[in-house]
């Protein structure tokens, strides 16, 4: 049996795939393939019927995500069985109907595949034995219905209807998910059996109101309950088979299905009773009232559906066993007559080309057979005796007045029930009278006639069912109802009789009153006002659309207000956030955080203060002059020099060297870039902004300075001592900084040269084919610098030798591959400056990219060499060679690594500099702002005077 259940669920999905795959086959074949799913499904269900009717509950359990309690449990009890029957049987009919309904231009395979997917999802909802799994299928029905409603995606109403349905039912699905999760928290399991058994615990839980509201949120949206009912009429943009299937028989019933399903667990409290009853009643009335004034056939049916869904909801809200039975019964009846009505409406639409009730009329003469079917079904909808609608409506009346609620509520439910009868008759009458009787049709292009034989068959089947159930319920629907209601109510199953005649009683009186009232109402209204001229506005829908638009507008406004793409703002937030987190701990505990600890620890020698001035004065000058970019750059040079000297002063010669080299190269890059940038920043308007930034800058400086100061006053307990101790004996280097760089933390250097190499590549990629016009240029030939160039020829070899020296000595003295690489780049760079790029490159054909590649490979290989000896990557070795003539030669393996560094740094630095130095002029554009007039230059900024 478990496999049967699995197969049952799998069938629609498999066949959906089959239909999609077979989309080139003839339409009839495709329809048959599609129909296989419900037909075979019915067979499978039939096979399980004896067990179900026997009162068994069939299970199939698979693991999916037990970690969160989401198990693939399928569970078939009587109610699920009944619903599955409904889904499959009507599904089969709808497929048959769709085959003939859909025009040649539309893709039948697509529709059928979507329908089958929906069918699978719906079956899943019905036979889920795990609430989480149920919510999975629940959302799947929303999703597939979205696709189905939007089937005619070229139509705006279809797109909007689909989206609206998705938003409302999908949102409801999220609420349901929340509710289910809460139920799981209370019960400790999502297993349906466990949940149904834990009703008392649930109702007693403090979380119950939350859980109930969330679950009801899902149920009400799905079943189109007031006030979110408006999506359903909007969904009528779907092809009629879809409306017939989803919006009458199945999907909208998922809500009431769940209401019934969880009835044993959730119902029985005042909260449940009042909420569900009230909402149901309101929905009932609002739907029915609107149906009267609707001109669209399908719209009328949709509002009627809303009304009937309200009725069913109200029944489950009433909560008495009788009401539950009535609810289940009405689910079945409504599915049958409403589906046939939709199909009939579809036929009318198909034949006449319109669904506007105002254009129709007199169809009984043109298509008598279809008219007869539709009239019978409408009468069933109106609750006329001898039809199935009458039976359940009668039960509804009975349930509405036989509650144990306080009197006012009973009066309310009773009146609602009566009004339901009246209004139902009225709109049914309108549907029948204005379509099939009277004059018309008006203004049609073609003369309508009966549809193809096969298109009528599904309607015939359903109408026959209406009549059969209405006349001999005990022989037809009784086992279904018994199984269905029995599964919900269990031992509380009441005695009820499925008979047409129960004698003279209140319900019968209400029925009669309803029918008379309905007839009076319709004709009264028709006489009183021109029904055709009534324009209905769905306030809810408009409100929803308006709010949704508002949401989009708000989304885009808020987003634009926040993320306006401004770097200044982005940086501001970053700086402010950083300041906040840095300052807050200090401010909260200033006593310990900034403890004075007896003043500065180390007295400073006076040259230190000179350096201090040398560092800060140019920085502040740069701040003052920053708009004159050249001057600011010169000032940065001063600060950079001072920083380097401070590093020397504070025992960090390696750092000083690196800083100096990097300074130099940075300076060159800045100057190279300045050729392509405006020579100065424009004066800033807006003093407030400058003041604000100034204040932020001051705070930032104080906070960071204070942190640094406080940090330096704390005792220093570092692991670096061990590095000092182990550097010479174990890493064979005197210069501990270099040893850290190539050995202890060689992996950092590894990353660092990678960064450097990538920077070279990025610069290359950005400038490779870039053609840029300089801001301004000088007329005339390049300035002749042959004299300095000539001196450089003497100097360059010495610098190169110095580079090698620094590289070789690095392990034991200040220096190392990085510094050496930059030192080697400098004379080349100066040659570029003095001789011009073309002159240098014609003589020095160098592939810097390849140099970088080789450097990386070398670094990699030298690091990996130790792996051959079973030591980790980057483990340094040490070779002490006694060579003749040369004597003892120490070769730490880190040297090889340093060589890689050397090559990468040299290659990348040169790549950057040469790329920036050899930008080709734009072909399409001369300089941005023209030629520099030499006579008009300012000695103060080097540029045009302002």
């Amino acid at each position: 049996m478990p496999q049967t259940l699995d197969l049952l669920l799998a069938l629609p999905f498999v066949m959906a795939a089959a239909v999609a795959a077979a989309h080139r086959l003839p339409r009839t074949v495709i329809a048959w393939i599609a129909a296989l799913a419900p037909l075979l499904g019915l067979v499978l269900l039939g096979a399980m019927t004896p067990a179900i009717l026997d009162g068994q509950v069939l299970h199939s359990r698979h693991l999916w995500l037990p970690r969160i309690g989401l198990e693939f449990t399928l569970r078939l009890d009587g109610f699920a069985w009944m619903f599955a029957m409904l889904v499959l049987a009507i599904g089969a009919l709808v497929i048959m109907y769709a085959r003939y309904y859909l025009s040649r231009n539309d893709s039948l395979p697509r529709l059928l595949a979507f329908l089958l997917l929906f069918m699978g999802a719906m079956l899943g909802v019905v036979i889920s034995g795990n609430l989480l799994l149920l919510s999975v299928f629940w959302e799947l029905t929303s999703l597939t219905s979205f696709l189905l409603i939007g089937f005619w995606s070229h139509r705006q109403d279809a797109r909007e209807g689909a989206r609206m349905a998705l938003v409302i039912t999908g949102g409801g699905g999220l609420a349901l998910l929340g509710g289910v999760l809460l139920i799981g928290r209370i019960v400790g399991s999502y297993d349906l059996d466990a949940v149904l058994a834990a009703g008392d615990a649930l109702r007693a839980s403090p979380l119950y109101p939350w859980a109930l509201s969330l679950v009801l949120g899902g149920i009400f949206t799905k079943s189109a309950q007031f006030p979110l009912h408006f999506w359903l009429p909007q969904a009528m943009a779907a092809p009629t088979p879809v409306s017939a299937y989803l919006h009458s028989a199945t999907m909208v019933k998922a809500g009431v299905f769940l209401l019934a399903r969880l009835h044993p667990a959730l119902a029985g409290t005042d909260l449940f009773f009042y909420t569900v009853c009230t909402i149901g009643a309101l929905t009932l009335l609002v739907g029915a009232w609107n149906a009267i004034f609707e001109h669209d056939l399908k719209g009328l049916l949709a509002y009627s559906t809303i009304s009937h869904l309200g009725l069913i909801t109200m029944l489950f809200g009433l909560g008495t066993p009788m009401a539950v039975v009535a609810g289940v019964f009405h689910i079945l009846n409504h599915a049958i007559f409403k589906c046939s009505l939709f199909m009939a409406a579809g036929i009318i639409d198909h034949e006449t080309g319109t669904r506007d009730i105002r254009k129709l009329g007199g169809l009984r003469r043109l298509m008598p057979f279809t008219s007869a079917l539709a009239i019978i079904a409408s009468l069933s909808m109106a609750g006329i005796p001898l039809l199935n609608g009458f039976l359940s409506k009668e039960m509804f009346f009975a349930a509405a007045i036989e509650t144990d609620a306080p009197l006012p509520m009973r009066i309310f439910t009773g009146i609602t029930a009566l009004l339901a009868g009246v209004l139902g008759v009225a709109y049914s009458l309108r549907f029948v009278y204005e379509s099939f009787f009277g004059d018309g049709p008006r203004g049609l292009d073609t003369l309508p006639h009966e549809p193809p034989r096969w298109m009528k068959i599904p309607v015939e089947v359903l109408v026959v069912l209406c009549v059969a159930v209405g006349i001999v319920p005990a022989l037809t629907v009784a086992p279904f109802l018994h199984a269905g209601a029995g599964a919900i109510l269990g031992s509380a199953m009441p005695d009820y009789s499925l008979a047409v005649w129960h004698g003279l009683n209140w319900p019968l009186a209400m029925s009669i009153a309803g029918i008379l009232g309905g007839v009076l109402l319709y004709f009264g209204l028709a006489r009183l006002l021109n029904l055709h001229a009534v324009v209905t506005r769905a306030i809810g829908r408009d409100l929803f659309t308006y709010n949704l638009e508002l949401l989009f507008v708000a989304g885009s406004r808020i987003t634009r207000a926040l993320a306006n793409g401004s770097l200044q703002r982005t940086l501001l937030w970053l700086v402010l956030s950083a300041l906040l987190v840095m300052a807050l701990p200090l401010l909260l505990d200033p006593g310990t955080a900034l403890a004075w600890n007896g003043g500065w620890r180390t007295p400073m020698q006076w040259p230190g203060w000179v350096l201090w001035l040398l560092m800060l004065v140019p920085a502040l000058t740069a701040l003052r002059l920053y708009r004159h970019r050249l001057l600011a750059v010169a000032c940065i040079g001063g600060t950079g020099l001072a920083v380097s000297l401070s590093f020397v002063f504070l025992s960090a010669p390696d750092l000083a060297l690196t800083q100096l080299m990097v300074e130099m190269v940075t300076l060159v890059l800045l100057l190279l870039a300045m050729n392509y940038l405006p020579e100065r920043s424009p004066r800033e308007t807006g003093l407030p902004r400058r003041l604000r930034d100034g204040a932020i800058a001051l705070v930032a400086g104080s906070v960071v300075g204070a942190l640094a100061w406080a940090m330096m006053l704390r005792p220093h307990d570092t692991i670096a001592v061990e590095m000092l101790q182990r550097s010479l004996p174990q890493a064979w280097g005197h210069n501990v900084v270099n040893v850290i760089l190539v050995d202890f933390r060689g992996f950092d250097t590894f990353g660092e040269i990678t960064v450097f190499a990538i920077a070279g590549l990025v610069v290359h990629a950005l400038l490779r084919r870039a053609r840029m016009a300089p801001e301004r240029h000088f007329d005339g030939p390049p300035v002749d610098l042959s004299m300095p160039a000539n001196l450089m020829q003497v100097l360059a070899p010495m610098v190169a030798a110095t580079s090698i020296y620094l590289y070789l000595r690095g392990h034991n003295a200040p220096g190392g591959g990085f510094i050496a690489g930059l030192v080697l780049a400098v004379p080349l760079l100066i040659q570029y400056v003095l001789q011009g790029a073309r002159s240098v490159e014609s003589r020095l054909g160098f592939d810097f990219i390849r140099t970088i590649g080789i450097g990386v490979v070398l670094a990699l290989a030298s690091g990996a060499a130790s792996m051959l000896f079973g030591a980790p990557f980057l483990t340094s070795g040490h070779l002490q060679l006694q060579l003749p003539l040369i004597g003892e030669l120490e070769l730490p393996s880190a040297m090889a690594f340093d060589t890689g560094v050397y090559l990468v740094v040299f290659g990348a630095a040169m790549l950057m500099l040469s790329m920036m130095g050899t930008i080709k002029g734009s072909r399409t554009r001369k300089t941005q702002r023209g030629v520099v007039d030499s006579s008009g230059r300012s000695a103060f900024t080097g540029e045009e005077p302002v």
Partner: protein
Amino acid sequence: MNAAIDLVLIALLVAGSIFILVGALGLVKLSDVFARLHAPTKSSTLGVGCVLLASVGYHLLQGEGLQLRELLITVFLFITAPISAHLIGKAALALLPGHQPAPPPGDD
């Protein structure tokens, strides 16, 4: 002997500091751009040369051996100082066209 070397070193240092100071003072004091160019580029170079020489001697005296390599810095300085001065002069001339002298007398 050491005392003699000491004295020589002291002399070098004094001379060096004087030249360095003169260079810096000239840089600040003189009012003409080109006049300012003269002081630091040469005086400072010479001053630094003196200090470097003193340094060589000083380290020799401290028993750290003859550190002749510090002379290399002097060599560098003496090669580069003219380049620097030349280029700064050229730049100043370009920026102060008023100072531009008449073109050279015609070829004769």
